[in-house]
């Protein structure tokens, strides 16, 4: 059996006396859409930030592709192919939509100071290919006509789409998405998940926090339910929806 892509073992993170994440164990395999749901304040975003290296876990280990990533900086974790799309888009607003995409390209040789000055031909060639890839991804999220406009001119929904597109541009092995369908009209939300399904068959796994359960449960292959910093339920979406404890957690005590 193939080892899981992301393995989280007994990870805890507390702020002062409050355990935001408390002894979490979970596995993400090499493809498919993996859901993470739970009420507000249950620790989902803290867990994401801990995986990404924005917080250090107080306890436990996080393995990505067999390698312990506890003590790596965010940019090193990104280099391994573990990429994130923020819940509130954090774009580079004065740069064009296309430049936002190109910043995210993994392994762009011109990113280095020396190469930028002295190996111009090499990265110029590479950039041609990257631009094509970027325009293809932008086409999927219907932003291609705006490729040369500043990101600051996009509407709220479009910013969200660009945030996701930027994550895809990095050709991740695992993309963390924090509420990709929030603030987007239902039809487009559905289409985003359809696209994610397409990508996941090409060997990208997605780990998705989403409150719009009707969309998530249609596409997810496995769902973890978090409450008060712990994983309280896990299983296929059908099994989750038929579990009465899920309702009491998510919709409040009866």
């Amino acid at each position, binding site marked *: 059996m193939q080892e899981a892509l992301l393995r989280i073992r007994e990870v805890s993170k507390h702020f002062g006396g409050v355990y935001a994440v408390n002894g979490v164990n979970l596995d993400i395999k090499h493809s498919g859409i993996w859901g993470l749901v739970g009420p507000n304040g249950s620790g989902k975003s803290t867990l994401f930030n801990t995986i*990404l290296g*924005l917080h250090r876990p107080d306890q436990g280990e996080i393995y990505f592709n067999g390698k312990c990533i506890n003590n790596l*900086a*965010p*940019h090193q974790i*990104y*280099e391994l192919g573990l*990429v*994130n799309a*923020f819940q509130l888009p*954090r*774009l*580079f*607003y*004065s*740069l*064009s939509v*296309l*430049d936002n995409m*190109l*910043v*995210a390209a*993994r392994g*762009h*040789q*011109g*990113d*280095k*100071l020396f*190469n*930028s*000055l002295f190996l*111009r031909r090499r*990265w*110029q060639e590479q*950039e*041609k290919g*990257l*631009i094509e890839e970027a*325009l293809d991804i932008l086409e999927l999220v219907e932003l291609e006509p705006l*490729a*040369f406009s500043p990101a600051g001119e996009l509407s709220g929904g479009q910013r969200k789409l660009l945030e996701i597109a*930027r994550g895809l541009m*990095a050709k991740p092995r695992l993309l963390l998405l924090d509420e990709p369908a929030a603030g987007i009209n239902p039809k487009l939300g559905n289409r985003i998940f359809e696209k994610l399904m397409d990508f996941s068959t090409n060997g990208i796994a997605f780990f998705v926090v989403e409150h719009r359960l009707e969309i998530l449960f249609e596409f997810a292959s496995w769902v973890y339910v978090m409450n008060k910093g712990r994983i309280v339920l896990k299983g296929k979406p059908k099994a989750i929806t038929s579990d009465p404890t899920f309702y009491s957690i998510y919709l409040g005590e009866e």
Partner: protein
Amino acid sequence: MGPLLYICDIIVYIGIFGIVSLSLNLEFGFAGLANFGKVAFFLTGAYTYALLSQIGVPFYLCLIAGASISAILGLLVSLPALRLRMDYLAIAVLAFGEILRLIVKSEEFAGGNWGIAVSPVFPWMGSHLAYRLENIGLVYLCLLICFLVLQLLANSPYGRAIRAIREDEVAAEALGKDRSKYKAQALMLGSAMAGIAGGIYAQYLQYVVPGMFIPMVTFTVWMMVLLGGPANNWGVLLGAALVEIFDRGTNIAKDYLNLPIDPSNLQYILFGVLIILVLLYRPQGLLKESKIQTKALRLAHNARSTAKNKGS
């Protein structure tokens, strides 16, 4: 002859401070680093040049040494400073500049208050005009090299990465950009360029004294960048020219004006007012931020416009 010499002198100054403001543009305009200690690196270049030229080192080695030592200082300053937030970084490097000035003022090897005499690159041939013209050649050669390097960087993936760090450093870090490394590189390169400008300045004036390196120099350079347009190398050169002409112009004007207060103080006040006006009414500066232009981007853009023309 008088006015011509004066104009040539202004042209030399525009070139020297053009280099310094270009270097600040790399740090602040592109990478978002508020370097309020610019004068420290200018001073380092000038004093390195002065001390080395005294023991007979050829001028180009003096310039290179000044640039290298400035770059090393830039790196050293960046180590603790980059952990600070932008406003604290500004205060830390401002203090660093003052500390350096006080060191050269109190140390004997640096000539103390009286400074050191510096031998010029171009020996005195008995003509003020020739001396200035030769220096214009040297200054603008260095300016051209710095400008070309910065233009190449601004229009490269490296320039894209540092602009991304300026816009949102957490997001840039999450997209694989090691922000400390990029910031340290920008500070090193910017400091090296300021060091070269300092060396040229020292040999042009043929002396260095601590009084030449007061914080006002830093603020003047900031004025050039803010007025011309941060993240636009052409704009910054325009800003350098305008501020230098304004500076010299008010110097002349005070000979013809009868004011109740000392006109030199009025000049500082006018500077302050100008900075406030620019920030209020034209925060992007005279010229807007330059777009990133790589060959590949241009090709993609052209392909799109031809497709559009065919479509319509």
